[in-house]
């Protein structure tokens, strides 16, 4: 019975003001198109544009009406967007929170209106609010992909360094996966340095220089994002060194160019379009009355010179 709650409430609410839009007036019957409101933290980012495309094409398959709004990296704006969705009585809300703590109160509002909330890419980290399902990259597995790239690049032996940003949870997962892969696949590769460069290119560049100075026999560097990896590449070039394998994460256009010209060996690559599509799939399952898992992992792939042609 519980899942008919939102529909029933919406129907009651619709009886009061007779001027509501036609899209939500059909929620009582199963035949009409379901509406989904999506608030994305930053639609200017390529990553989220790809996620949006994945959602759009998957929603078209099921005939859902999807509305996208850009929170423009502003928590207050995201909150009011959720409130707009509630007053428009959408059937489901998808969020990629800008602030994983601050999003809690918006989710509570949607919960109170009996609208199911799903998160994509970034989870609700606050103690408030209930999210039906969270869909995101499996960063541990992504780190493992990066680790296996590293094993192959250094021929299963030697010392490597990690240009880290340990205060970010997704990065912690990446590094955990990276270390796990080294242990399993190439135990002779040792992580000799793990420095916190804050994920920025300037600091990664400076810190890599210091690491290269201390470990003259360094064989490889794992940058936890592409800015870290590209900062390391610049430091290696400035030191006039060659043959140090750099592995990054995300495969941004610049990293792809670096992989193509050989200054990086490869990247772990997330699939935001798949994250988008899977989020729509889980909503479809939920609408059809299936029980859905609280967390759905989307595998992370690799991007190497073979992909760069």
């Amino acid at each position, binding site marked *: 019975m519980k899942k008919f709650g939102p529909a029933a409430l919406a129907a009651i609410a619709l009886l009061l003001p007779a001027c509501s839009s036609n899209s939500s007036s059909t929620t009582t019957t199963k035949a009409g198109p379901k509406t989904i409101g999506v608030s994305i933290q930053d639609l200017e980012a390529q990553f989220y544009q790809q996620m949006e495309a994945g959602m759009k094409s998957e929603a078209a398959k099921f005939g859902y009406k999807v509305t996208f709004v850009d929170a423009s990296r502003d928590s207050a704006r995201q909150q009011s967007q959720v409130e707009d969705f509630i007053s428009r009585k959408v059937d489901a809300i998808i969020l990629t929170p800008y602030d994983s703590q601050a999003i809690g109160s918006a989710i509570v509002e949607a919960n109170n209106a009996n609208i199911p909330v799903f998160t994509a890419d970034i989870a609700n980290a606050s103690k408030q609010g209930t999210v039906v399902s969270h869909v995101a990259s499996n960063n541990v597995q992504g780190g493992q992909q990066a680790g296996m790239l590293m094993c192959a690049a250094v021929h299963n032996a030697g010392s490597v360094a990690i240009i880290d940003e340990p205060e970010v949870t997704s990065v912690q997962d990446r590094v955990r996966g990276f270390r796990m892969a080294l242990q399993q696949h190439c135990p002779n590769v040792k992580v000799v340095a793990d420095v916190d460069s804050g994920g920025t290119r*300037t600091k990664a560049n400076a810190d890599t220089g210091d690491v290269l100075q*201390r470990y003259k026999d360094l064989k490889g560097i794992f940058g936890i994002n592409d800015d870290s990896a590209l900062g390391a590449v610049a430091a290696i070039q400035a030191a*006039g060194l060659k043959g140090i394998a750099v592995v990054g994460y995300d495969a941004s256009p610049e990293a792809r160019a670096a992989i193509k010209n050989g200054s990086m060996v490869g990247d772990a690559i997330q699939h935001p379009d798949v994250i988008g599509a899977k989020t729509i799939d889980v909503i479809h399952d939920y609408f059809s009355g299936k029980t859905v898992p609280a967390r759905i992992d989307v595998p992370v792939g690799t991007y190497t010179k073979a992909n760069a042609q």
Partner: protein
Amino acid sequence: MKAETRTYWLRAGGAVAFLIVLALVINFASHGTFLQPGNVVRVLRQITYNFIMGVGETFVIITAGIDLSIGSLISLTGVVMALFANATGLHGFALIAATLIVGLAVGGAAGFVNAVPVVKLNLPPFITTLAMMQIALGLSYILSGGQPVPLQSTDFQNTGYGSFLHTIVPIPVIWMIVVLIVSSVLLMRTRFGRYVFAIGGNEEAARLAGISVGRVKTAVYVISGMCAGMVGFLYMSLFSSGSPQTATGNEMLNAIAAVVVGGTSLMGGRGAIVGTFFGALLIGFLDNAMNLLQINSYLQWVVLGGVILLAVVLDELRKRYLKRA
């Protein structure tokens, strides 16, 4: 003037002696990796950016002002230069020179905008440059669409991380030496430099003495903006791209720290480019040494903050001691 020159050299000598002792201690602790020529050269290359930011800031701070916009201006000029370099059909030296001029012009223009409300309306530079910090960062993100702008030309690589004589003299270090000499002469040996000190010492007295205070103040903010443009150019060349995220972290605060550790007074009227060089060198040495000694990165912040505090406290105590003697 002569006594002043003597204390100036005494201060510089003291700083050198302090750094030498510190370097020897660190070298011992790091089993000799610290003072290897390659490492020393690398530290010099690494402080280039902080030092050049600090030079502009030194001029501003001596007039008792402050420029908070330099980090954002590095981001903005880097993006503008990368877009310009990709759009123009120039090659080789002409491309590099034209791109640098564009960066200096954008930085200088932003500095001019910083100065106008300070000079005309007597508004605090803390506020006007804080506003510019936001404006420049926003523009940088708008122009770049939030993404780094990769350089299509490879002509900048040599400027960014090339070197003379097989990695012995990195090209950024040559830029640093040129900036060091030109700015020192400008501040210490010209009438303009004397006006900068006079305004910082006592602005009203400077005005009564017939100094065109407005023009001199405008000039220092323009210089600061141009220094940011030059750092934007060097970072863009190093990374082969102009990114809106470049230098938007602690870079501006580190530059101010270098200036203050170098003995320039935030109250204005006192300071030196050589001091800023030693300030940047001390911070760069410490960063490098702590990485070599594998000190935890959070502890590194504590140590760095402590050193900044210690440096200014020691400088103040030394000044009081000299006054009494």
